[in-house]
């Protein structure tokens, strides 16, 4: 698999920001198995790490999956190789956000329920997914 | 200092580091010839007086090689060597003497590469440091 230069750099940045080493992962899939929102996450954690292992960091940064992780840390807690995917996802989001691209535009979030959602959820959501 | 060649006395434990040095040889790995190997049965059998003797008599460095912790052929000799080394370093540092002329390294029988690299690294390190101040300064 050809690895472009920028993708190598991206991987380096992701590893640095997350403090994780993607080659530690042996693709057992435990993170995906245990992810409480694994069905909705695309790619699911193990596949996301696989993309990084294969040098496909740009594809991962473009994906939905990284925005779905709610940082519940179940994957990292149970990972037999002590890889914390939540931190990898965080690093990916940070890289996107730092290029000034918001995932969620606060103005577009609407709905009658918004009145009753605890504000911590808004702060968290916008901190995680908006510039 | 161009013609300065560091002299290193090496104490190699019979079971791991000596065998590792043999493996470096069998694999034809080249390393500088500055180290004179002395085969001892165990790193736990290297007395600090040997190291001091070598240093005071003009060696520029002393190398000690033993089995990795947990792998000692004699159960725990390398753990004892490690404690001796802690004491030795503490005494040297308390006196303001360089303890980086004395290297203790764990090198197994399978680590020929590591042996060759370590001796190369140590020789280069001592080359950079220059001759041991001990040999001249402690004479008349």
């Amino acid at each position, binding site marked *: 698999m050809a690895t472009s230069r920028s993708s190598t750099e991206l991987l380096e940045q992701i590893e*640095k*920001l*997350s*403090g994780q080493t993607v080659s530690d992962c042996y693709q057992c899939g435990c993170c995906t198995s245990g992810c*409480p*929102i694994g*069905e*909705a996450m695309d790619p699911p954690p193990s596949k996301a790490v696989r993309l990084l292992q294969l040098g496909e960091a740009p594809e991962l940064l473009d994906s939905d999956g990284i925005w*779905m992780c*709610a*940082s*519940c*840390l*179940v994957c*990292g*807690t149970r990972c037999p190789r002590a890889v*914390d995917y*939540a*931190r990898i996802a*965080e*690093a990916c989001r*940070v890289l996107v956000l730092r290029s000034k691209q918001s995932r*969620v535009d606060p103005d577009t*979030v609407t*709905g009658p*329920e*918004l009145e*009753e*959602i*605890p*504000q*911590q*959820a*808004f*702060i*968290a*959501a*916008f*901190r*995680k*997914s908006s510039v | 200092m161009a013609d300065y060649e560091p002299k290193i006395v090496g104490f190699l434990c019979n079971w791991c580091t000596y065998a590792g040095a043999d493996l470096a040889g069998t694999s034809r790995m080249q390393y500088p010839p500055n180290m004179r190997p002395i085969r001892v049965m165990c790193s736990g059998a290297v007395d600090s007086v040997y190291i001091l003797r070598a240093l005071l008599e003009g060696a520029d460095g002393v190398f000690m090689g033993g089995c990795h912790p947990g792998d000692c052929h004699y159960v725990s000799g390398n753990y004892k060597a490690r404690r001796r080394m802690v004491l030795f370093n503490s005494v040297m540092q308390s006196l303001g003497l360089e303890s980086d002329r004395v290297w203790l390294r764990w090198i197994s029988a399978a680590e020929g590469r590591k042996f060759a690299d370590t001796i190369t690294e140590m020789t280069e390190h001592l080359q950079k440091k220059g001759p041991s101040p001990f040999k001249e300064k402690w004479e008349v």
Partner: protein
Amino acid sequence: MTKYTYYPGCTLYTKARNLDICARKAAEKVGFELVEMPSWNCCGAIYNAASDDLAAQVGPVRNLAKASQLGDKLVTLCAACHNVLKRVQNRLDQPGNEVESERLKTFVDEKYERPVKVLHYLEVLKQEIGWDNIKEKVTKPLGGLKVASYYGCLIVRPKEVLEFDDPENPQVMDDLMRVLGAAPTRFDFKAECCGGYLVVNRRDVAKSASKKILDNAKAWGAEAIVTTCPLCQYNLDKLRAVTDGSIPVFYFTQLLGLAVGLAQDELGLEHNAGDPVGFLKSKGLL
């Protein structure tokens, strides 16, 4: 009466008043006092795990510095605040982290005087007060109410930083419920995620994650759920319409308050969804 510096956080002043009010009043009943920290600021709501993102930690650092001037312990109640403050505190005082720690401290004017132990209210109950002492204060035992204790993710993980309880099968809240006279049920989803803040833009995801939690609690025979996180409470309680059949979700402080004799109007039940009053009456607890 021992006084503790208390950090309520924003949600406890608004949407989760029912978590906070009972906590303060119940504390006095069981023998300690929560003294609210003056001029606290937002904790940030979520911990930023990127290794270089120091700016995100400034808010919590300021809170911790202020708290350090008041004492060596800081009590939290909201699971999110607890998670953030505890993790930032860890970052400040972890050996080997001195350089970063010093940098962080330079961001705020307040002097960080000493390491502050960030304690969750439940930890205060267990470690500082003790179950036996609480048991003595129970005037209205909960009559064997079958409750499933739901901890969520934020107070148990990461385990080595939070040092709260077993992250797979935590027990603290179960123990408390037992002391209060309830019958905690087994429950396999004690520490699974409810979907958290995804409810803001991915309501569907939060709904399905919450449904699994509620389903499992009901499968184990739970009549009610207790929790300590406003967001968990919201996702489980307000979103429960999605589940077939209702099961009330209380804050543990509400049941604590009830058991130690707070009056009905002190429990903040009006902030819960459904008919919690009717439920408690049907169980003979009101």
